């Protein structure tokens, strides 16, 4: 869309500026011997208005050849040719107008007088056109910066949405429905157990929401969340789910993005323990070594288990978050060997306060 034609306010200002130029032109045209102020205006104002519209066309070459991308020579040639042509058209319009006016007794001799101004008028026309080109480039730049701003805003919104989706995905609906089913089962003959399960579930949800809103959390907080999650799952799976932890004290204070490990532990339960008839163990390890925080999540698994749709989604998610946070300094490795699935993460351990 043409930046001037598209907005009436801009068009009005633009035409006003050209009327002003037409006024100046009127003064100049009244100057030659035998001319009058009236004749100057009769020629100058239409000429100004005519050129206003001709110059609007400067937008199209300006848009087609943006300053940054097109070569300087090509631009120079394009615009110079357009300027010479436009000014020629302008002058021709002036000559025809002067001839027409000369037929009126009031403006007798106007055509001859206009001829004398022509050598000056032509270069002025070229310059005015080039001025219009500059103005249009200004508009192009303005539009581009606005577009970039809009785009940046759009990206920000997208990032926010992704964050929200991630959070929602972290609280897996299957997990919730299964937990509610367990509570429903306990209500009958173990009301105390049902109450404890409700508390665990409420704690887990509260923790997820609270920690999820933070930028970084200490490993100790993430571990507390995991302990809670695993307690709930232990009600469902009973003795099939065993958990062991080896956490170095120094590691507990290390900062991580929230809910980084939770999806991995959830995977360990759904794809590991839940696929084993006799169940198995989930092992969590954390230690600080050489400026790195080393994390291990390992679980028993059935090598012949069915690979379900969505497998690997959680892992890919974690990988992406690590990359976003630490770039290439973070490392994630997942491998399966002899009925054990092991995820190792190493991230820089920031200096502790």
């Amino acid at each position: 869309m043409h930046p001037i034609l598209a907005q009436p306010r801009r068009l009005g200002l633009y035409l006003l500026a050209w009327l002003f130029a037409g006024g100046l032109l009127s003064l100049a045209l009244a100057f030659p011997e035998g001319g009058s102020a009236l004749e100057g205006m009769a020629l100058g104002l239409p000429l100004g208005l005519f050129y206003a519209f001709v110059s609007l066309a400067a937008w199209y070459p300006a848009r087609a050849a943006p300053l940054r991308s097109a070569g300087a020579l090509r631009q120079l040639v394009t615009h110079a040719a357009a300027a010479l042509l436009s000014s020629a058209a302008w002058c021709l319009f002036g000559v025809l107008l002067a001839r027409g006016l000369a037929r009126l007794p009031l403006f007798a001799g106007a055509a001859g007088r206009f001829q004398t101004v022509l050598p000056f008028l032509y270069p002025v026309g070229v310059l005015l056109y080039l001025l219009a080109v500059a103005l249009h480039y200004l508009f192009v730049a303005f539009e581009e910066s606005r577009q970039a701003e809009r785009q940046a805003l759009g990206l920000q919104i997208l990032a926010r949405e992704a964050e929200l989706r991630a959070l929602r995905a972290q609280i897996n609906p299957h997990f919730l429905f299964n937990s509610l089913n367990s509570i429903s089962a306990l209500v009958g003959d173990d009301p105390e157990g049902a109450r404890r399960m409700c508390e665990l579930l409420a704690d887990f949800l509260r923790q997820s929401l609270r920690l999820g809103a933070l930028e970084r959390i200490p490993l100790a907080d993430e571990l507390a969340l995991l302990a809670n999650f695993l307690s709930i799952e232990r009600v469902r799976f009973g003795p099939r789910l065993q958990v062991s932890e080896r956490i170095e004290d120094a590691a507990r204070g290390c900062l991580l993005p929230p809910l980084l490990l939770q999806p991995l532990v959830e995977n360990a339960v759904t794809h590991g323990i839940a696929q084993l008839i006799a169940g198995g163990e989930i092992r969590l390890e954390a230690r600080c070594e050489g400026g790195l925080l080393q994390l291990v999540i390992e679980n028993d698994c059935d090598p012949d288990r069915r690979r379900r749709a969505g497998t690997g989604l959680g892992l890919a998610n974690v990988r992406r978050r690590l990359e976003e946070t630490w770039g290439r300094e973070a490392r994630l490795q997942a491998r399966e060997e002899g009925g054990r699935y092991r995820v190792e993460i190493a991230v820089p351990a920031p200096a502790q306060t």
Partner: protein
Amino acid sequence: MNEPTPSAGAPEGAAPLRVAIVDDEEPARRLLRGLLAALTEVEVVAECANGFEAVKAASELVPDLLLLDIQMPKLDGFEVLELLGEEGPAVVFVTAHDEHALRAFEVHAVDYLLKPVSGQRLAEALERARARLGERSGAAGASGPGASAARALAAAVRPPGRLERLLVREGPAVAVIPIEKVDYVEARDDYVCLRAEGRKHTKQQTLGELEKELDPSRFVRIHRSYLLNVERLARIELYAKDSRVAILADGTRLPVSRAGYARLQELL
């Protein structure tokens, strides 16, 4: 497997609905047991913690209805249904919310309950099962969802991809055969006979159906009646004009038709 626990409220005279509960999570079984205890004319004949136990219970105790969890280790609910086949008990799936499963259920009209299970929905599902069972015994041949429906269901729910293993029911037991262990499959009317690790297994499925589920770059239809795992192929010999035999690594000889030979050549 737990001992049968007859429900208290069954009135005298009427034959109670014999139900087996199948779920790998103890609380889930407990909930169903509790809800069923409140209903009349229902008898819980078995509680199974996995698919193998379910197939065994179905063989030995012949329940009218399975309340069948879908996500279970080793054998999932769909596979249990497939193994039980057309003559098996009626099935009501019990599952936590799962969009794919729901869509499949709509298409194939197998009844289902969502976790957490509501007592009222359970009673309604039992009512429907009872009605269906009545029809089944009334008109011979009419049956429940059956094996083919289960396979279609499973295909709709599982991620697209080739079959990784074959399940074969042998009486109350289930053999799980990894697909790479299968040497060849032979058609026998409505059954297939497959050989794996020196043993033969029969399965209620047609060769054409099975062929569609297998990886075509591994299993080739060398003959109207034979599907061959090409990794077992040692050589092909001309037997007579236009007739060849495939000789497997262990010396087994299988007939190769002209079309089958063309398919083999294309692959190799």
